[in-house]
């Protein structure tokens, strides 16, 4: 199963449409998609608009490959569960977000071993082919917690420590 997710704030039909086209050419791959406020019918995707965090995590756990916008909830959850994730950054020019910060997120997060970035429909199809043919590991799981230096800085702050 492929799990696709576009978050809850804004629709992202460019990604879902591309995935729908790709899924139409497949025979044995099912795609479950959390679509947000999309008004489009995707014939080759099984869709739900929103999911509780626990359901979201379950879907990531069950999926072979995750496809999503370049949102940190998607990227971090996939990394925590050691799943390959293909991210397509939302573009302000297409009305997909208020700004282009997802481009910066994607260009930094592609350094993670489980992350592939697709800028458009063609790259998405290529990345799906690559991710679905992968049979070995993909870098394993990350720790469920923040870096030790951030944890100790937050802990120090809570205990009244002064931050320079």
């Amino acid at each position: 199963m492929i799990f696709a997710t576009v978050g809850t704030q804004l629709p992202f039909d460019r990604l879902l449409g591309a995935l729908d086209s790709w899924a139409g050419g497949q025979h044995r791959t099912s795609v479950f998609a959390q679509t947000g406020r999309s008004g489009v019918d995707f014939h080759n995707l099984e869709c739900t608009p929103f999911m509780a965090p626990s359901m979201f995590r379950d879907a990531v756990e069950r999926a072979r490959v995750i496809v999503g916008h370049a949102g940190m909830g998607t990227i971090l959850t996939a990394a925590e569960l050691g799943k390959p994730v293909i991210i397509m950054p939302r573009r302000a020019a297409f009305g997909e977000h208020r700004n282009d910060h997802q481009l910066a997120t994607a260009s930094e997060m592609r350094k993670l071993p489980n992350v592939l970035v697709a800028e458009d429909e063609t790259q998405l199809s290529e990345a799906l082919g690559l991710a679905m043919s992968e049979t070995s590991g993909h870098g394993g799981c990350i720790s469920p917690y923040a870096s030790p230096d951030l944890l100790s800085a937050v802990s120090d702050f809570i205990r009244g420590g002064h931050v320079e």
Partner: protein
Amino acid sequence: MTGLSHVSPPRVLAISSGGGHWVQLLRLAPAFEGAEVHYACTDADAAGDVSAAPFFSYPDANKSQPIKLALTAIRIACIIVRVRPDVIVSTGAAGGGLAVMMGRWLGIRSLFVDSIANAKELSVSAKLALRAADAVFTQWPKVAAQTPAVFRGSVL
């Protein structure tokens, strides 16, 4: 001050929007050990992630929705009055910025950790928090170099 006085654990309000902000807030959980943590999130279903702790939800809003933002502010004010935290910790977004501002007016110490998504510049909420929070962390050294926010590590 006597050396024998009992020190109660600090009461923390950990507050963020749903989705990636909430995932990042949960990744800070070990830093809350020994504190009395109360969580707040825009997503009521997030309660299931922190079942052992007190949980509140508040409506989502952003700066382009003034009426919703006002309702969000009222709800967050109610949460702060209920919890009476010693410290507010937020990973964003708008609601976290509002909580930090209210904390300032009420004399509550606050820490705003900007999302790791903001790899090039601070978010709008973090810029707001710079005027009110006791500390604003960015998760990127290069953003820290260009802004008053400080780098103290990241959620990764």
